[in-house]
Every structure is written in structure tokens, then in C-alpha cells.
């Protein structure tokens, strides 16, 4: 909707990296790449281990009993039974990787298949599967594995397959959710309308979307599987005679007073493999979320500010005249100070090393009791200007230069503590999306009271009375009932009235409204505009209203500021701008308004029918 929000939200925070690039992006992450190398190394060892073992891993050589590492031919020394530690370490890789493989395959096959079907088709299968998988989740996995080993004497492979089954719910839930999300995407609807059969939709659209998250989860499960398997072996539950890191840990633990260093080797091997899996899954997650961008550190930020500052300084040198004209302009037009004076405001964002200026040298005034409309298309910087005034720009934003004065007091650079006294009290804000701007966990009344009490010394009772009076004032028929409601229980139009009530409760002298009616139905929009007009007339507050709709300007505003790509292109009294637009861009925008276009004629056939 408001595309200015796009600039802060979508472009900066998390434009998700498109899936095709995921794998390449992964390899660029050094930790992930290193982990892949480690895993590949261990995997190769697991395969070729019979040929590279220095000694048979179970061969007992009494001379070697608890031999110190790095001596003689035995690199890591010998264990309590006189067996070569290095050989045992190498021989154990196979078991570990087998465990990881069995577990992953079982979990993926069961979880993904069921998740795809449940997510795509929903209905009965979904309810049954969801119930079943939440039941499986309540199974105490380790104790079941212990009992299977001890009571039934199952093999490691079977045990890991059971474990894979027991952890398959996590795969199921993830795949189901992702599939449902994709299923609800409009592009899947479009594919269905195009006549694509379900299997093709799953193949082309769903699998692509779940591919990377499934890999993420496999990495996580594999790491956990190896750790659990080693833990069970540590308890003595492995297959006798088969070397394993867990069994080596047990042996070393029993030997702890004699040769504590023996604990190190299996632990290191185990740690390397499990952490490699963990790092890969973290790498995949970060890449998917697009967070693998070097965050701008404080130093970098200062650097940028300095850079911009010098450019700004350059301008101010030539801009002293600028400032002077501004002053004369104010003195000539009105004898008193303007309510809001924005001068040379410049706001920028850094993304991927380059700087994007979203508000560029913007200056305008709002006089006391005046309604000013800022109008522009997406990316015009209109919303950013409002947030800069309120001091509510996102953290990534950089206010490079300029001045924002409210009643002559400079707001830029004011400490947060001082701003707290100004926000809500001197200037207030009405947002665009009514429902997302109410805290879902609190009743309408309690969040109004929080706001009022933040601004005034009102007691709870006074604040409550004021909130109720305000709800009544904004045209809510039954204030007490709405006061007690939660945001999800009220309509969008009602929510917007509540937000307006909250904004004007402490009689601000300036109201900043960001597309306050865009999300509303036309009939509600008209009523909310009526309300804003009435409140303005009553209190005499200044209003700065941001909109993309010239109709809103025509309905409400005294003056209008037209913005494009962060700059002001035209400013003037509403009547003048509508009748004699000076700038080509304003003319183009007004020319795009559909109000006066002649409607199309009914088609020939219809006309004949009606005649």
C-alpha cells in the first residue's frame, strides 16, 4: 500500500534471496563452506577407512596400554585395553555417518511426504496427520531407544530408523506449513487457473520453495542424530566390538584418573562433526532469511555520517543564503513562528554498501491550525518525512542533515528522553493500517490508558475517564463496550477511530497522519475524514496528512506539498495547485485521476438490448 513503508521494510530488512541463488550464497559464507569441507573430509574417511586404518581398531597390544599420544608409531597413543586410539577414531566415522544417514532418510521420507500431502490437500488427511504427528512428538525418544536396545537388542540401524520416525514430526510441521503458505500464494492459484495438474504444481512451485528449508532441517537432524547415537553408545548400548566415539568416551571416562587426555579425541571428532552440521543449518537459515549481509557496524555508520556530513557542509556553505531566504520567507508570510518547520531534511539508508537517499533536501512549513497534505507516489519519501519528524525512523535510517523544528524547538538530535515528552503530547501520529497498529494482547482501553498516562500525570481513573470520553468523541456508539474489547474483536474502521482517539487524547498541537484512510472502505474513509476535519476545527491543531490520493487532499487540506523520489516538486494552496499545477509531474498526476474521464459506452449488443 504505502510504498514508502516498502523502502524501510522490504528492501532493507529482508528481501528474501531467491531460491535459485541459495546454494551459491551458501558457499560464500565462509563458516558454511568450511563446515562443508569438514563434513566432506569425514565422509571420505568413513568410506575409505578400511584402507587407511593404521592398525586394526580392536587389536589389543598390551605394550600400548594407556600409551601417551604423539609417541612412537601410535599417533594418539593407546587406550586402557591397549588399542590404538587413532585407528578406533577413524573406524568410528562409519557408524556415525550411517546413523546420520538412516535417521535423515527416515525423517525426510516420512515427514516430507506427509507434510506435502497434509499441506497441499488439507482436509481429513491434514487433521489426522496433524494429530498423529503431535502424538509422536510426545513420545520420549531416548527412553524408547534405550528400551529397544536393552529389551529387544535391536541393531543401531533399526534404532536410528526408529529415532528418525520419532523426530519426523519436526520435518512434517515445517513442510506442512511451507506447503500451505505456497498453496495460498496467488501464483499457485494462477497455475491452477492455467490448468496445471496438482503434481505439476507441487513439482514446480512447492518443491522449489521447501527445498532449502528441508536441507536446513536435515543438517540439524543429522547433527542431533550423531550426538544422540554417541550418547547411547556412551551408556554402553552400542553394538559390542564395533568401535564408536561414544564407546571411546565411556572407556576414557572410566580411565579419567590415569589418562584424562583420552577424553579429548573422541570429543573433538564428535564436536567437529556435530558443529559442522549445526553451522550448515545456521548458514542455510541465514541465507534464506537474507540476513547474511554484513550489518553496518557503528564504525561504518560513523564513517557514512561523516561522508554525508562533509557533503552537507559543502552545501550549507552555499546554503547560508538558503537558510536566510527561509527565515525571510517565514517572517514575511506570518508574524508568528510556524508550528512545524522542516528545512533541508535528508534521510538515507545504507544497504549492501551503497547509500539510498529517500528524503532529499525537503523543506516546508505547517502553520498553526493549518492542514497540509503531502502527496506523492510510492518511493516519494512522504512517509519517511513523517517518521523523521516523529523521531521514529527505523534504526538503519540515517538523518544526514537538515532541521525539524516544532514551535521553534529543534527536534533532530534531541535526546530520546526529551522526545518522549514531545511525542503524544505536542505531536501525535495516526497510522495507515488500523489493526496492525493496535497491540493485540491488550484491550483497546488499556492501551489508550497506557498512552494517556505516559503523557500526563493522570491517575488510572482519570486516564480511564479521558479514554472513554475520547472514544465517545470519535463517534463510537458504545464507548464502554469498545473500551473492553481486544483489537481482533473490532472492525478496521472502528480501530482507526480508536487510533485517532489515542492520538488526540492529549490535545497535541500537531497531528501527523500517514495515509489514515487508505486501508479503509470508501464509505468508512469518508466518515474518518469527516472526523479528522471536525477534530481539527474543534481543537485548532495543525495537521500534516500524507496521502497518495488527491481526493483526500481536495477534501481536507489547505495547502499541498507534492513529492517525487524524495524531493518536493511543487507546493501551494490547494485551490491553486488543482487549478494551475506548475510542475509537469503534478500535471501528469492530476491527469491520471480518473474522476472526470468519460465512462465507456455499454457494448453495442447491450445498447441494442436496452434501446
Amino acid at each position, binding site marked *: 500500500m504505502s510504498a514508502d513503508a516498502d523502502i524501510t521494510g522490504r528492501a532493507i530488512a529482508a528481501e528474501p534471496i531467491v531460491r535459485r541463488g541459495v546454494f551459491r550464497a551458501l558457499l560464500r559464507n565462509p563458516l558454511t563452506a568450511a563446515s562443508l569441507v569438514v563434513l566432506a573430509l569425514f565422509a571420505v574417511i568413513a568410506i575409505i577407512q578400511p584402507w587407511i586404518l593404521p592398525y586394526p581398531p580392536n587389536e589389543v597390544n598390551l605394550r600400548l596400554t594407556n600409551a601417551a599420544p604423539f609417541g612412537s608409531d601410535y599417533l594418539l597413543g593407546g587406550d586402557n585395553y591397549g588399542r590404538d586410539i587413532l585407528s578406533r577414531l577413524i573406524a568410528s566415522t562409519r557408524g556415525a555417518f550411517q546413523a546420520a544417514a538412516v535417521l535423515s532418510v527416515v525423517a525426510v521420507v516420512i515427514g516430507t511426504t506427509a507434510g506435502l500431502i497434509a499441506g497441499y490437500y488439507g482436509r481429513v488427511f491434514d487433521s489426522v496427520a496433524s494429530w498423529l504427528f503431535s502424538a509422536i512428538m510426545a513420545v520420549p525418544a531416548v527412553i524408547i531407544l534405550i528400551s529397544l536396545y*536393552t529389551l529387544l537388542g535391536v541393531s543401531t540401524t533399526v534404532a536410528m530408523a526408529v529415532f528418525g520416525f520419532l523426530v519426523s514430526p519436526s520435518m512434517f510441521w515445517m513442510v506442512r506449513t511451507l506447503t500451505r503458505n505456497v498453496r495460498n500464494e496467488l501464483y499457485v492459484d494462477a497455475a491452477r487457473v492455467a490448468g496445471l495438474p496438482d503434481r505439476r504444481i507441487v513439482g514446480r512451485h512447492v518443491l522449489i520453495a521447501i527445498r532449502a528449508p528441508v536441507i536446513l532441517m536435515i543438517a540439524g537432524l543429522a*547433527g542431533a542424530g550423531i550426538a544422540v547415537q554417541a550418547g547411547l553408545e*556412551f*551408556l554402553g548400548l552400542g553394538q559390542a566390538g564395533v568401535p564408536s566415539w561414544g564407546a571411546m568416551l565411556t572407556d576414557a571416562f572410566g580411565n579419567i584418573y590415569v589418562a584424562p587426555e583420552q577424553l579429548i579425541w573422541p570429543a573433538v571428532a564428535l564436536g567437529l562433526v556435530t558443529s559442522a552440521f549445526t553451522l550448515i543449518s545456521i548458514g542455510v537459515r541465514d541465507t534464506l532469511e537474507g540476513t547474511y549481509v554484513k550489518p553496518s557496524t557503528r564504525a561504518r555508520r560513523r564513517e557514512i555520517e561523516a561522508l554525508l556530513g562533509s557533503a552537507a557542509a559543502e552545501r550549507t556553505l552555499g546554503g547560508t543564503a538558503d537558510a536566510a531566504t527561509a527565515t525571510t520567507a517565514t517572517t514575511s508570510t506570518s508574524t508568528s513562528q510556524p508550528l512545524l518547520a522542516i528545512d533541508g531534511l535528508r534521510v538515507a539508508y545504507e544497504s549492501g554498501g551503497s547509500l539510498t537517499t529517500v528524503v532529499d533536501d525537503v523543506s516546508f512549513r505547517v502553520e498553526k491550525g493549518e492542514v497540509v497534505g503531502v502527496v506523492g507516489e510510492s518511493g516519494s519519501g512522504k512517509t519517511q518525512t513523517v517518521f523523521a519528524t516523529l523521531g521514529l525512523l527505523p534504526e538503519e535510517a540515517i538523518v544526514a542533515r537538515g532541521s525539524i523544528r516544532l514551535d521553534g524547538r529543534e527536534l533532530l538530535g534531541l535526546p530520546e528522553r526529551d522526545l518522549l515528552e514531545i511525542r503524544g503530547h505536542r505531536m501525535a501520529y495516526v497510522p495507515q493500517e488500523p489493526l496492525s497498529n493496535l497491540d493485540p494482547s491488550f484491550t483497546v482501553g488499556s492501551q489508550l490508558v*497506557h498512552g494517556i498516562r505516559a503523557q500526563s500525570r493522570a491517575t488510572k481513573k482519570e486516564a480511564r475517564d479521558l479514554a472513554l470520553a475520547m472514544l465517545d468523541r470519535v463517534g463510537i456508539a458504545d464507548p464502554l463496550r469498545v473500551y473492553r474489547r481486544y483489537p481482533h474483536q473490532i472492525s478496521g474502521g472502528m480501530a482507526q477511530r480508536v487510533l485517532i482517539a489515542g492520538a488526540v487524547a492529549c490535545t497535541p498541537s500537531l497531528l501527523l497522519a500517514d495515509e489514515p484512510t487508505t486501508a479503509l472502505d470508501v464509505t468508512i474513509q469518508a466518515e474518518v475524514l469527516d472526523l479528522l476535519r471536525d477534530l481539527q476545527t474543534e481543537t485548532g491543531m495543525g495537521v500534516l496528512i500524507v496521502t497518495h490520493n488527491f481526493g483526500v487532499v481536495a477534501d481536507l487540506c489547505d495547502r499541498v506539498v507534492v513529492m517525487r523520489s524524495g524531493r518536493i516538486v511543487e507546493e501551494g494552496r490547494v485551490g491553486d495547485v488543482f487549478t494551475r499545477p506548475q510542475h509537469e509531474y503534478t500535471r501528469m498526476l492530476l491527469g491520471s485521476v480518473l474522476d472526470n474521464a468519460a465512462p465507456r459506452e455499454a457494448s453495442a449488443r447491450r445498447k441494442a438490448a436496452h434501446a
Partner: protein
Amino acid sequence: MLTYVARRLGIGVLVFVAVTGISYVLYHVRGADSIAYRLLGADARPEEVEIKVHALGLDRSLPEQYAGWFGGLFRGDLGESFVSNQDVTAIMSTRVPVTLSLIAATLVLTLVFSVVLGVWAATRGGVVDRVIQVVSVIVSAVPGYWLALVLVIVFALNLGLFPATGFIPITETFGGWLSTIFLPSIAIALGAIFSLAVWVRSSIIDMRRQDFVRTLRSRGLSPRSIMYRHVLRNAAPSIVQMLGLQIIALLGGAIIVERIFALPGIGQMSLDAGLAGDIPVVLGGVAFFVVVIVIINIAVDLINGFLNPKVRIS
């Protein structure tokens, strides 16, 4: 809300029946004779085996046996040990407090430290944030039992600060209880603390980006009040959900850590009983853990139902 609670409880009971039922069948799948031979030794005479089978009630049909076992639950009777002929409930009565202590201590440690660290990382950012993220990766890669080994070596054996093994019930001395439970629960909780802290951090950061937070700020609410009253309040459901999952995942680690610290808990009991072929005791252990998991799940659902006005008032 009441039907919501009732439904969760119903699902919990069904899960209990299903898990214990399937385990019961699995443990008996090898047949009565094989169970008896396991107890008596491979060289037992057939008559002995027959007597044993009859004495243990293994000659009844499986459904009948399970029904008997399940019926016993209502009388607080989990059957008798195949090995010692003691009541399983009696065997478990001294062990349940040990394992519950471990779980409770782990829960408290995880919750407190992860929230504190997560809030810290989210609000301070910078170095604190980085350190917590890096440590979480390292810790999550190390299995809890390995950490337990290190803790035993350093704090118990080398420094002698804590007892290396054993358990003192909380009913005796609180200090003693704490000293025996401290190292094991740290060993179990450490990985969870950091991974949950990272979760808390990102939940808070997500929540702070919400529109309503900006609107509250525009009303002049202080950052502190927004953080503790609104941000944490809204991040709580996802934190509680994750905490529940983490604790359930940690139960397996608890069994192994019990072994290392020689804590006489349910995990140790089940392991020893399994090795001895003592099916009723193992079943007791399984039943205990299923109940714990079901209770955790219900608690998570109830807390989140309570936190979510949409559920609470419907």
C-alpha cells in the same frame, strides 16, 4: 477456555494410552518364553521357564495383560518388578524426585538465563549480541553429556567444589540438594540456554518492528515500558512454545547425565531395568516420561491460550 483445557487433556490421555500401549506390545513381541529365559538365564530348564511365565502372568493374551496394567494405573499400581518383585511404584517413588528436581532446575535455569541474555542481546546489540550468537553455536554443537564430563572433572574432581556423584533430597537440606543438582542441570541446560536466548533475541527484534510498537512510541511511552509491557508480552507465546520444545528435547540428555553424576533417577532406573529384562520397571519409566511430556505440552498450550486473547475469551 474450559473446552480448550478439556480438549488438551483428552489428547494427553490418548497419547499416553497410545505410547504405553505400543511400547507394551513391542516389549512383549519376542514372546513370553524369551522374556523368561532372559530373566532366568539361557540354561534354565523348560519347567522353570513355564513356572516363571505363569508367575509373571505372561501366559495371558497381550490385550488382557495391557488392560490389567492400565487398570492398575487407576489404583496407583504399576505392577511388580520381574527381578526384585518389588512394587514398581515403590521403586519409582525415590527416583521420581531426583529426575523431577533435575527437570525443574533445568527449566528454571533455561528460562531465566535465556530471557536475560536474549533481552540483553536484543537491546544492547553490538558485541554482547555477537558473543551470545557465537557462544550459542559452539555450545549447541557440544552434546550435554560431554559437557557434563568436563564439569565433573573440573569442578568436582579437580576443584572439589561440588560432589561428583549422588543426590540429596530437597527435604533433607536445600543446600545439599542444590549442590548435587547444580552441575548436572547446568550440563543439560547450557545448550538450551543459548539457543533459546538467540530465539528470544530474534522474537524481540521481530516484535519491535511491528507497527503497533511504533504507534505506542508515538504516544510517548518510554522504551522500557514498551519493552517490558508490550514487546515481551507479545513475544512471550513464541518463547514459551520454544522453551517447551527445548525442555522435551533435553529429557534424553537428562537420562545420560544422570548416569555420569550417578544420580539415582528414572533414567538410570530404566537403563538398569532394561539391561536386566525387567519390563514392568522400564514401562514405569516410559510412563513417567510420557506424563512429563504431556504435562509440559499442556502447560505450554494453557499458558499460550491464556496469553492469546483470541483463545482466552472464546
